[in-house]
């Protein structure tokens, strides 16, 4: 973890209101696990005040670069969308614990399920899994055709299915519609996306081991403020995990979602 002024290498809109931003900085060298995130100060003034957490979507250690993908939404992400090459951005990272790639063995099949803006961290995950000889199947859900991104990138890593909620592209419906139909056999499931999606996957019907990446409103991002806790499901009253520093990725069943 470090705080660093990273330099914008490239920033482009890759789908409707979805931006792919590549930054360069020494912290790229510390990014070990896919699924970790960075905490970004989008302006050097009061407006907005807090940092914004965004997952790391791709890491290029050779070039000391990393990429994030985000949806332009409120003030913070709107300002981030305006960053131009050469500009400096104050980043704290890498933060949290990502997807445990070591839980999959060479020859295993890994099922990656992503919803909307939960798709990005799965990309670096897919790359690392494929590098380690694991077969990757990706099931990605989006709102609508114009929101779809990275289909080609995922396709290069393995079988890739797309669903859109309005049916304007791929299978109409949610990722679960695809999963229910496609009869996918996987040894391990990794997922990131909206809470209802994660809940549907939590039961473990699609793979014996599942890892889910959670979102929660944060302030510090490093485990100091207790903003982002969620209770565990181990039956110990009052037991909890911090999404920012214990997560954002948890084994399915570890925490209540």
């Amino acid at each position, binding site marked *: 973890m470090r705080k660093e002024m990273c330099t914008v290498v490239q920033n482009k809109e890759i789908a409707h209101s979805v931006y792919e931003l590549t930054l360069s900085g020494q912290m790229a060298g510390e990014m070990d696990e896919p699924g970790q995130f960075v905490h970004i100060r989008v302006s050097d003034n009061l407006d907005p005040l807090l940092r914004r957490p965004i997952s790391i979507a791709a890491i290029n250690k050779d070039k000391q670069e990393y990429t994030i993908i985000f949806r332009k939404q409120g003030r913070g992400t709107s300002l981030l969308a305006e960053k131009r090459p050469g500009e400096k951005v104050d980043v704290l990272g890498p933060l949290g614990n990502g997807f445990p790639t070591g839980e999959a063995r060479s020859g295993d099949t890994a099922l990656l399920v992503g919803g909307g803006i939960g798709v990005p961290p799965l990309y670096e995950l897919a790359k690392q899994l494929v590098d380690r000889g694991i077969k990757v199947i990706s099931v990605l859900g989006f709102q609508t055709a114009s929101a779809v991104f990275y289909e080609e990138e995922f396709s290069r890593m393995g079988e890739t299915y797309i669903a859109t909620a309005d049916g304007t592209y791929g299978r109409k419906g949610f990722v679960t519609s695809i999963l229910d139909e496609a009869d996918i056999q996987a040894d391990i499931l990794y997922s990131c996306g909206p809470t209802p999606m994660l809940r549907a996957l939590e039961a473990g019907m699609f793979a014996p081991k599942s890892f889910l990446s959670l979102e929660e409103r944060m*302030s510090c991002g490093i485990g100091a403020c207790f903003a982002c806790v969620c209770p565990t499901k181990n039956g110990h009253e009052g037991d909890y995990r911090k999404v920012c520093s214990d997560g954002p990725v948890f084994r399915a069943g570890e925490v209540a979602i």
Partner: protein
Amino acid sequence: MSLLHIDLPGLSLKNPVMPASGCFGFGKEFSQLFDLSVLGAIMVKATTPEPRFGNPTPRVAETPGGMLNAIGLQNPGLEKVMAEELPRLENYDVPIIANVAGSTEEDYVHVAQEISKAPNVHALELNISCPNVKTGGIAFGTDPEMARRLTRKVKEVSQVPVYVKLSPNVTNIVSIAKAVQEGGADGLTMINTLLGMRLDLQTAKPILANVTGGLSGAAVKPVALRMIYEVSQQVDLPIIGMGGIQSAQDVIEFFYAGASAVAVGTQNFIDPFVCPAIIEELPELVAELGYSHISECTGRSWKRNEKLAYHRA
């Protein structure tokens, strides 16, 4: 001696800058970023007799120039704080100010009695101003009689000086300050958060699961300054000031208003290096403004000039 050294009841501070309670946990995370020994002191997270989970999430919301929190005093409980958190902080050369909270008078007394025995706890901060818990907290901080009584009880059992943390959500903060002085407080810390709220445009519901939360950050600075200005003139206790501090300039402004030391809260989330950065900048700023010691700035806005002339180089 350094122009930043400050002596307060129980506290010999190498500099008057410390992280505020709840904004620094028990220091563990920040210790990965910098050497905690550079800090004047550390105000650790509120401790209650038993572990507390706190409020449901979302617990934070952003506001213009500030933020709301409704953590609800989540903490691992007295036993674990004594056994794990405080001993870990002994690795650093820094006095700890333990933030004491509870639901009942007995809770406060119990925590105060025990935690004040920890070797590195040099002072207590009685949190009678947390707006985010159903019982205790702010109830003690808005009623002078309750505040006085609680302070007295805690003073009876504490091994170290007791600072009382005041709530800004009152009509007359001076009356509360006077009450805790009568109760035997050794110092004041102020301000805790202002009660506030945000609503979600889409759902029409409060953003915080707890509905309301405590407002902190730059937005509250003028309110904090005003209250410190009022209280420091009416009460004869040192004040550790806080509320929106972001820079060395802000620190001086708090001193001018009447503070003898300061704490930085919310800004730690925005810049985790803010405390060491301010500590590094302060000596030059103090000198630039023409003071030979930062203590000359305390209450300078209201102290008579003759007295001040004496302090000047």
